[in-house]
């Protein structure tokens, strides 16, 4: 079997020697890598970031020997990535006077980091030596372990929500750093002197590990990123788009890799369910999510994941979240900076929800491994069903169809198959419930289609029974308003998402041979005609959406 990032453990020694309390993935340093470490280290101490980047960049060209940056340089690179041009143009220009590569330091740092993450994800031993890959993994895992929030404790004031149009946010001031609380990172290598013992900041920004391990700073960073990812203000949007979205993306990739490694190698085989739960509660992703909230996880999580989105949930808690810039000055454009790129609303929504989905996906990645009838000890009260319900309830109240669509517009179906269909199903049930609650009594419609994704016949039968009752057909006595149309569109999107996944799993040729396929198409057309009938009788000026045309295109009829 091909080695992967979680499977390859030929060179790790952390599990063998107990005296030094090394992490499991620990790989010892060799003379060749020590050379690279020291070169980079000395450049770093001289604040010569251009040369650090260049040293790594010029070896990204076709070389079989991969230069591996030590964990402390990785942290410096991550911090360097936060010093974006838009708010630090002056200091960047001063420290990078003749820039022959014609790119700013922060973007070069991000590109290098992405390059290494890519190598870790591929873990291709035909391209690079296995030792090098395991050693590289060790450096990045050291980074991610120092970044994980150590305390679940969070001390952020909860304000009463101010009635401001479209904004539930209060921009507070950043908490000043208490020097005493900074603990030095333990250097696991005896032959290497880390530069971080003498270095505290990069171009005026405190090192990212110190910043993010402050109480409340990690979750603040996530909220800052998510809430600004839909901002109109150029400085706030750039802070998210140019700095924190890419960094958070890298951090999430690393957490997911780290979690896989943990599950494969560290949790232990054949352990009891109780012990498994206990170990899972200490796993990397658990620590990541503890930063959200360790006690009332589900409701807080749903609030946070849809921060600054356009929705109105009844009975949500009446407080707003205080966030502040991660680094000083991030909310203001530098005088030397001219914003050129025009980000459209659609683009913003797509990028923003891509990231939100990724975090939600990581949450399900953690929960999938919790044994049945057990719950994690910390974060408490976390269960897949509750989270599906919570997220579905929120999504069902979305007021902006573009945002709603962006959430479900998954760009890699196979990687999100384990949770997106569940959310589509849950949201569909909520929307149907909201749609009929004004009119009829009776038990809540239950929709169970996801479990039939493997059984196409049953899947179609479920939809047939749903459509036969009239699916999202507006009531005759209720005027068709924009809001009604919005609800119909949302319901349709959920149906389409479920079909997209069905088609992802079986080819449309096969689907057309299924027994009830023709029946399904008839019912679908009938449902469309019912919708049109109501619209016609009301003489509505608004176009009512129909489903058959889209589905027939998807199925290539």
């Amino acid at each position, binding site marked *: 079997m091909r080695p992967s990032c979680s499977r390859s453990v030929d060179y790790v020694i952390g599990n063998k020697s107990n005296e030094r309390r090394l992490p499991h993935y620990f790989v010892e340093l060799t003379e*060749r890598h020590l*050379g690279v470490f020291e*070169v980079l280290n000395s450049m770093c101490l001289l604040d010569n970031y251009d*040369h650090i980047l*260049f*040293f790594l*960049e*010029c*070896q*990204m*060209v*076709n*070389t079989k020997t991969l*230069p591996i940056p030590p964990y402390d340089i990785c942290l410096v690179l991550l911090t360097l990535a936060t010093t974006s041009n838009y708010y630090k143009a002056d200091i960047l220009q001063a420290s990078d006077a*003749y820039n*022959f*590569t*014609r*790119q*700013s330091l922060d*973007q070069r740092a*991000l*590109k290098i980091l*992405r*390059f290494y993450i*890519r190598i870790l994800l591929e873990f291709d031993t035909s391209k690079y030596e296995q030792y090098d890959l395991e050693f590289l993994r060790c450096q990045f895992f050291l980074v991610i372990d120092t970044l994980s929030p150590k305390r679940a404790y969070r001390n952020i004031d909860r304000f009463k929500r101010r009635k401001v149009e479209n904004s539930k946010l209060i921009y507070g001031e950043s908490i000043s750093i208490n020097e005493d609380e900074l603990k030095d990172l333990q250097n696991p290598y005896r032959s290497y002197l880390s530069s971080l013992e003498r270095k505290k900041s990069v171009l005026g920004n405190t090192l990212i590990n110190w910043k993010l391990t402050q109480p409340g700073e990690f979750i603040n960073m996530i909220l800052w990123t998510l809430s600004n990812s839909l901002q109109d203000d150029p400085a706030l949007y750039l802070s998210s788009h*140019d700095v924190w979205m*890419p960094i958070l993306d890298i951090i999430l990739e690393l957490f997911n890799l780290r979690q896989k490694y943990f599950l494969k190698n560290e949790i232990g085989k054949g352990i009891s369910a109780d012990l498994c739960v206990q170990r899972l509660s200490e796993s990397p992703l658990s620590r990541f999510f503890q930063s959200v909230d360790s006690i009332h996880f589900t409701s807080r999580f749903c609030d946070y994941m849809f921060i600054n989105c356009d929705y109105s949930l009844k009975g949500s808690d009446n407080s707003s979240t205080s966030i502040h810039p991660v680094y000083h000055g991030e909310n203001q454009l530098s005088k030397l900076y*001219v914003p*050129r*790129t*025009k*980000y*459209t609303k659609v*683009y913003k929504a797509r990028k923003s929800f891509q990231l939100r989905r990724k975090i939600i996906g990581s949450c399900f990645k953690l929960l999938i491994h919790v044994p049945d009838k057990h719950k994690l000890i910390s974060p408490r009260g976390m269960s897949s069903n509750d989270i599906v319900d919570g997220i579905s309830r929120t999504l069902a109240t979305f007021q902006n169809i573009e945002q709603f669509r962006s959430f479900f517009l998954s*760009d*890699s*179906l*196979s*990687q999100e198959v384990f949770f997106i269909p569940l959310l589509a199903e849950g949201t569909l049930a909520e929307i149907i419930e909201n749609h009929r609650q004004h009119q009829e009594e009776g038990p809540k419609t239950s929709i169970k289609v996801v479990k039939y994704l493997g059984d196409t016949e049953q899947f179609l039968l479920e939809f047939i029974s749903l459509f036969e009752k009239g699916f999202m057909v507006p009531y005759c006595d209720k005027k068709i308003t924009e809001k009604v149309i919005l609800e119909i569109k949302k319901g349709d999107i959920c149906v389409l998402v479920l079909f997209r996944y069905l088609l992802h799993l079986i080819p449309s040729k096969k689907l057309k041979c299924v027994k009830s396929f023709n029946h399904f198409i008839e019912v679908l057309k009938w449902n469309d005609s019912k919708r049109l009938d109501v619209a016609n009788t009301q003489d509505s000026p608004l176009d009512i959406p129909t489903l058959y045309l889209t589905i027939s295109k998807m199925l290539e009829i």
Partner: protein
Amino acid sequence: LRISSTLSENNVIETFNQYDNFVEICPMEDIMKFLCYYDDDPNFIKIFICFILDRKVYETLFLDSICCTNIYQNVILKRTPQQKAEIGVDTSEIIRESNDENENNSDEIQMNKGNFIKIYFEVVDRENYLLHYRLIRLIPELQKDIINHLFENTVKNGNGGDDNIRIVEEFNNLFDNKQYHKLLYYILLIYGSDLMPFGHNKTTEYFKDCIYDMTVEGNNEVELSILKGILNIFYKIT
């Protein structure tokens, strides 16, 4: 409307540092997706080259070697009519598919590669080392082909078979003519290839000596001091 109508036949990038700074543009990711939608257009490669080498495009965060190499390997090298606009949508799946097919169409890939290099040199001037360097930063695997192409003609003129001599000759040529800007990107282009390895070697030492001598004589062009710095870094790579 096809893009081809906007690009005339003999469009050559010459004014690469004179693009308008104040025009508003869309996010690069969107432009790239749009561009790749037209991958069956006869001028696609030309447009792709012009696009990625534009300074403002090159500067953006989105454009990196991962994305460009992906398009190069999976679209340009396997240009067949049925290949369409999948870039960026689900790259991992394209790559997985591409691995299986690789062996069958190696001839076609070679042909496409030759074609790409040919078109590249139609668009970019042979001695424009800055753009060559930019290209290999985006598609590292092209370094070898670019260098081969640059020195191919001199091989035919017959100066022995030693490529290393030609590398030094070009260095001397640029150095003596005081074309330091070109020299800088020339050096950046050739290092890391099979012909010019990193680390200690005689050629690097020779380059370094030339540049040190020049600065001792009081010539302190900014490119020369940068070159000193980078040659020192190349020394340290082992």
